[in-house]
Structure formats: structure tokens, C-alpha cells
């Protein structure tokens, strides 16, 4: 049922990282590489976050919107599904799914505030048309489980409540990567806690070892996140981002 991750469509449809790196043939034609995919999705995730700050929705809505966007590009091309329009539309759809509906009109208004580039402008009608295309691309699977849900309880249980803010921040950062499409959310939460405990130099090995989860998976996720932090500067290089974005129609 919808209240349980293990019977959810999300669990059944977790993807192999390899599948995510495959570039859609239509995008290949335009010279878009899998590295460009990463950059564009990173950039578009940040764009969703900025828009969300204006329309004032909760973090869970942002996380769901980014997950939708990443799911769309696991199946569809950026050539056909323009990321500049997909970003606000995913936020629009996620807000409905998470019970905090936002008017398309408002979204179109804030787009102009967030992005001065004309290419990002869109009509209300375009958002509404894209909403239907995204529903289809998502194959109508809309429920998303996030690491946030288990985080507070896990932190408490591990005696790490003082690291809540820091861990929460790391979880937020995981949405700049495709982790949510690949791993169960509670393992992502644990990986973020692992990073926080290492950074705080808190010896917590015993607590982690007692869990009935595969710590190798948790550590691998943590490594991926740390690798991402290492490449962060390179990722947020404006020139590289615009070079990738310019390959789009």
C-alpha cells in the first residue's frame, strides 16, 4: 500500500546507475553527453530549489519535484522535454501531489524573477500541457518516499539529534544527484548520517553495525556523496553549465 516503501512502485522501479547514464538517441544527435546530463540535471535541480523558495513550499515538495524531473530523464530526451519547462512543471505537479497546490500563473510570474534568461520564460498554457506530458512520462507513478521520513527517528535513535541540521543539509544535497532513483530512501538517510558522524568525529560505528542493513551499501552511498562534494566546484562552473545548456534546443 501507499504507506509502505517495500510494496511501493518506487521500490520496484529502482534503477541501475548504468541505465541513468545512457544518453537518449535524440540527445546524442545534438552532441549531449552523459556528463552534460549530470550537469543539466544538477543545474535544473538548483533551479527548482530557487523557484520553490519564491513560491514557499516545503522541502518535501522540492524533493518530490526533483525526483519527478530525474525520473522523466531516465526515460525521455531533453530534446523533446525541454528542461527549462520541465523544471517548473515538475514543481507544479509535485505541489499538487503533496497537497500544497500552487497556481500556474504564480509560477510563470516567479520564473521571470528567478531567471533573467528569456529562454526560461513560459506561458501558463505551456506548463499545463507539459504537466500532462510529464504525468505520461512518469507512467502515472506519483508517490515518492524520501529519506526525510525516517531521518528524525534514526537520528534520535543514534543519539545524534544535535546533528539534525547538518544531516538534513546533506540529505538536501543528495537531490543534486540521481541517488533517489537508485537507492531506498532509508539507506540514503543512513549514508547522510554516516557522513555527519564522520565529519563531527563522533564514534558511532557500534550503532551502525547493529542495524540490520548492509553497511557496505550505506558506505558506498556515502562515498558517492563525498565524491559529489569533491566535484562540486567543477559542477557549479557557470561556463560548463551554459555550454551544456546551449546544446539544448
Amino acid at each position: 500500500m501507499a504507506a509502505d516503501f517495500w510494496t511501493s512502485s518506487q521500490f520496484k522501479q529502482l534503477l541501475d546507475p548504468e541505465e541513468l547514464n545512457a544518453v537518449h538517441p535524440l540527445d546524442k544527435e545534438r552532441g549531449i553527453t552523459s556528463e552534460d546530463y549530470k550537469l543539466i540535471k544538477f543545474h535544473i535541480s538548483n533551479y527548482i530549489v530557487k523557484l520553490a523558495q519564491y513560491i514557499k513550499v516545503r522541502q518535501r515538495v522540492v524533493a518530490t519535484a526533483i525526483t519527478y524531473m530525474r525520473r522523466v530523464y531516465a526515460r525521455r530526451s531533453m530534446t523533446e522535454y525541454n528542461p527549462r519547462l520541465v523544471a517548473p512543471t515538475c514543481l507544479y505537479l509535485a505541489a499538487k501531489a503533496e497537497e500544497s497546490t500552487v497556481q500556474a500563473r504564480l509560477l510563470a510570474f516567479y520564473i521571470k524573477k528567478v531567471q533573467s534568461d528569456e529562454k526560461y520564460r513560459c506561458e501558463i498554457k505551456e506548463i499545463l500541457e507539459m504537466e500532462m506530458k510529464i504525468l505520461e512520462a512518469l507512467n502515472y507513478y506519483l508517490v515518492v518516499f524520501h529519506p526525510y521520513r525516517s531521518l528524525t527517528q534514526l537520528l534520535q535513535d543514534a543519539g545524534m539529534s544535535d546533528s539534525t541540521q547538518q544531516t538534513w543539509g546533506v540529505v538536501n544535497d543528495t537531490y543534486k544527484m540521481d541517488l533517489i532513483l537508485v537507492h531506498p530512501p532509508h539507506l540514503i538517510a543512513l549514508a547522510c548520517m554516516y557522513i555527519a558522524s564522520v565529519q563531527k568525529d563522533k564514534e558511532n560505528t557500534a550503532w551502525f553495525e547493529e542495524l540490520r542493513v548492509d553497511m557496505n551499501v550505506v558506505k558506498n552511498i556515502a562515498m558517492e556523496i563525498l565524491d559529489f562534494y569533491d566535484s562540486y566546484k567543477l559542477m557549479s562552473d557557470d561556463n560548463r553549465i551554459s555550454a551544456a545548456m546551449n546544446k539544448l534546443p
Partner: protein
Amino acid sequence: MGDGRLSNSGSNSSSKPEWLEQYDVIGKIGEGTYGLVFLAKIKSNRSKSIAIKKFKQSKDGDGVSPTAIREIMLLREISHENVVKLANVHINHADMSLYLAFDYAEHDLYVMGDGEEHGVVKIADFGLARIYQAPLKPLSENGVVVTIWYRAPELLLGAKHYTSAVDMWAVGCIFAELLTLKPLFQGQEVKGTPNPFQLDQLDRIFKVLGHPTQEKWPTLVNLPHWQADLQHIQGRTYNNAGLYNVVHLPPKNPAYDLLSKMLEYDPRKRITATQALEHEYFRMEPFPGCNALVPPQPGDKVVNYPTRPVDTGTDIEGTISLQPSQPVSSGNTMSGSMSGAHAIQNRSIPRPMPMVGMQRMQPPGIPAYNLASQAGMGGGVNPGGMPMQRGVSAQAHQQQQLRRKDPGMGMTGYPPQQKNKRF
């Protein structure tokens, strides 16, 4: 599901969208706040009937209605013998309309009419359902109109949170309705007030269940409208509880015992779904069965549920536009073509027809079936009380045990809102 190729219609020059070609639409079987429902046969398998629910566009030109989103979202995750199956979703991009195709059930309360699943009761209409544990907004904030008959007293007195205890109250009301074929608390709603306090509804509840006291319900005094409207309520005297007179059951009867536990005033003392399934009522004759059309005991009268009338005068194609949509912001495209359809319907069907999966209108003296969609939360009840529900509780138990092993599976609750950090 929702194959893009089937759903695309824009380039098609014939009079039908491509996805519609796979169906023979027989006629209209219902309409409600959210749209129209058509009965169809699958061309490739004529024995299979499908109910196609067409959603109206939301009125302010704001895309797919949140109700449709909620319904798709939940039905896409749920696969259960007693939940109606969402067979397909279709999108007509040209006029931006959305269609849900369900396995069709002949009777209200969604009893399957034919085939392997003959007599199986299904819950339908998830338009008002929410994912459990998600923080909820009051339904009224979504502009949703639901009858107050099944609303728990704590909500009527201003409690802010929908809980599963609220759903159990609604289940109790429906249980009583199934026993007597008459709604238990048929209050008159005061419309257009933002205030949840509904004096008439509370009055009807108190008349049957007696005056609530702090002794029976300790947190009662904390409810906003208990304090504020004390004189309204205190001005009346309510005699002792007379529930058994209303449902014509002796207090010792297990059905009465279960019912009274569902209609417990204090939400914290109210029976839970799991506890209810363990109740003696489900372990005595007549035993629960999974075919609602079979009499409980041999020799009992077979219940003849009415079959649903079909309005063959309303053609689904007349409601679908293959022209690119007009400016959507006006939101008039669909309502224009649909009002035509309504006019025809009004002539051919003598009374508003209760329809599964659609919001019920509330005419007086409506027959006592079609309750599932009215439980406020989209929850229905199963008059037979089915054995597989016990299976569910066993599963829940299993999950509980698993949870102990793996703390990650608990996934309980989001942190309080104020703790939510933005990037």
C-alpha cells in the same frame, strides 16, 4: 498503462482519439462534481467491461485537478482484491482531458457483477483519499464538499487533525446504515461557514449516543467548539444512549458491541481497524464470505441489488474535442461541451443516480447502498466482513516485526514542519 502511442490524438484526423478505438462505449452511467463516467466494453475482449471516468478540467484553468492527481497517485500504488483496479489512464492532449479506465463493477458499493470476481466488493473513489501519515489539510480547504453525516464528533467540535479514528467513526456510521438501511446521523448542514461546528449534526449524534461527558471523553474540554458553543449543547438535555433502539439490536449482540466501539466518543478509546477485525462479530455465524451476492446462510433470501441504468443517449465522443484546446486559462472549453451532455442526460434519467466513484448528491430518501464513496475518506465498508482482511492484519503484524529488525523501515512521520530546512 497510459501508453503514449495510444494516448496521443493530436495528429489523428479521424473523429475519435486513438485510445478510444480500443473501447466500445455503451453509454453514460454517472456524473458528479468531478466529471462523467461512461460504461465501455473492450473490443478485443468483449466480456470485459470498463468504467471510464472523465475528469472535468479544474475550473480556474489550473491543469489536472488535484482530485484526479490524488486518485491516480493512490490507485497506482494499491493492488488489492477489494480495491477497484485502475486498468488504464488516457490523456487527450488536444483538449487536455484526462480519463481513468477502471474494471467495471455492476453495483454500487462496487460489487463485481460478472466474471471470476462475481460478488466481490471493491472500494472505489479515491478522490478524497490521502496517504496515511502525510500531514493533511482539511478537505474544505481543497474546496471539496463531503456530507457531514459520517463526520466524527471531534472534527465537528473543531479538532484540527484527521486521524484514523475519524475513519473508524465513519465506518461505524456505515455499519449502522447497512444494518438499518438508513443513514444513522442525518444532520442538516449549515453551508458556507468556515466553522466546523455543526449543531444539528452534533444534536443528532448526542440524541442517539447520549451527552458526552468529560468522564467519558477527557480531552473533550480542549476542543475549541466545546468551550465556545457550550450553551448550544448544554441548553439541551440528552437522555441516555439509545443506540440499540435505533439499530434494533440487543446490547448483548456482538454486532451491537462492535458498532458501539466504533462510535466511541473519545477518539483515543475508539476501536482501531486492526482491533475491529479481531472482533467476535467476524468469528461467528454467518461467517464472513467474499461474495456479497451469495446469501449468508443457505435458504436466506438472495439480495437483489439493482443494476445500474445506462444512458445511451450521451456519447463520449461528443464530450471530447480533437481540436487543439482554446486558451486554457478561461477553462471554458470543457464545461461548454459538457453542459450539452448534461441537458440530454437530465431528460433521460429520472433521478440523480448514485454512482460509484462519483460524489453523491444528497437527495432525501436515497437508497441505502452506495456508501463507500461517502465515508469522508473514501473508505468503504464490506458488509460481509471478509476473511482476507484478516490476512491484511497478519501482514501488518509481519511488517511490525520486520520493522523491529530494520529501523529504516519504520519511516514514521516527517519531522514537524518548523524543523523543515530548505536548501
